[in-house]
């Protein structure tokens, strides 16, 4: 019963990623295989809460830093940068 996938194309750290419509940026980053950020001591981190509270998922989107990617849906042509 899955809805027909309408792909959205964006880039994560310059690499193209194709996701289904409605996918969050956090999911797109995980699909690309990248962690969302490095902690102050250098650990790789990925989303924890999935609901806008922990800030582990923050990335830069189209040049705007510190965006909580779990709360933002992918749009065509988005330029997402982690770390």
């Amino acid at each position, binding site marked *: 019963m899955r809805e027909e996938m309408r792909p959205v194309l964006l880039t994560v750290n310059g690499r193209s990623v194709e*996701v*289904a419509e*409605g*996918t*969050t940026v*956090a*999911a*797109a980053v*995980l*699909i690309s295989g990248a*962690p969302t950020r490095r*902690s*102050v*001591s250098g*650990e*790789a*981190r*990925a*989303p*924890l*809460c*999935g*609901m806008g*509270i*922990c*800030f*582990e998922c*923050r990335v830069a989107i189209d040049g705007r830093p*510190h965006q909580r990617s*779990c709360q933002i849906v*992918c749009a065509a042509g988005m330029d997402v940068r982690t770390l």
Partner: protein
Amino acid sequence: MFDHPSAGVVAAEKGNERLELRYGKLILATGARELFLPFPGWTLPGICGAGGLDAMARGGLPVSGKRVVVAGTGPLLLAVAAHVAARGAKVVAICEQAPLRSLIQFAGRMLGQPAKLAQGIRYRWAVRAPMYFGCWPVEARGDGALEKVTLRTRLRRWTVTCDFLACGFHLVPNTELAQLIGCRIEDGLVAVDEMQRTSVENVLCAGEPTGIGGVEMAVIEGQIAGLAAAGALNEAGKFVPRRRKMLGFVRALREAFVLDPELRRLASDATIVCRCEDVVYGDLRRYSGWRDAKLQTRCGMGPCQGRICGAAAEFLFGWCVEGVRPPAFPVLVASLATASTVSEEVQEGS
């Protein structure tokens, strides 16, 4: 919504804009967040909340074919296991920290709520995975991402390989905004009367901040609060008996899923507690309280403002994590600095 600069006004951020919203009545419905308890390795990518994995799977994270361990406490675990299994995940274990006898008692008390009991049973049936009681993860390992998690019960310890560990120790009500406004907090919850009115005039509160009771209870409270705010007290009163009936469920939840004190020993000295500032357990346990620890270690000073580590510290050290100061939610510095750009009349907000 992040501040309450004066009576009848709340400050909010929308995109890059700061809004000052004037209200006659304000209904707070800020919900709850998951409680995360630190254990060695819990910061590895692949480990997230139980509700967290559910939310991310709904947000398009593919879990099909992935090995998932669901752990923590509360009825949410079964729901999450069933949801991700429906998306093709292979749930390898469900670990409930509460002992089996608590769950049996809980099920007994749920006989008065057959719909909820039936839902729980449906969820359990939908997942083939073994369910363990008095069980939780003690260590996670992996090279850059989760590979293995070690689980324990009173009788044994064993290690399973998995791609995701979805782990949440039930819910913490989001009371920050209510605290900032000055609403009385009792036992960690926003105190309300039968009409959902808080101790502050014209401010009402509905849903999880007044007690963790699931979606049905939240909806009833929302109806009462909405009608009461509109002055329809008689209409609102019609929902009160239903709410009162559900308070039994709230109490049953609290009692059944009370955290095992053993969980306080999960973190080792090198375990990160504050994920924003990478403050470890060994640094924190030297302090006598939250304020002290915060000033000396920066614990709770990062972007999450202590929402994750504060609740953990309350449980781990018995600290009282109080003193909310604006912003009650992290916002752009510009929002704090600029004067209001827009003013809107509103009746309610969250």
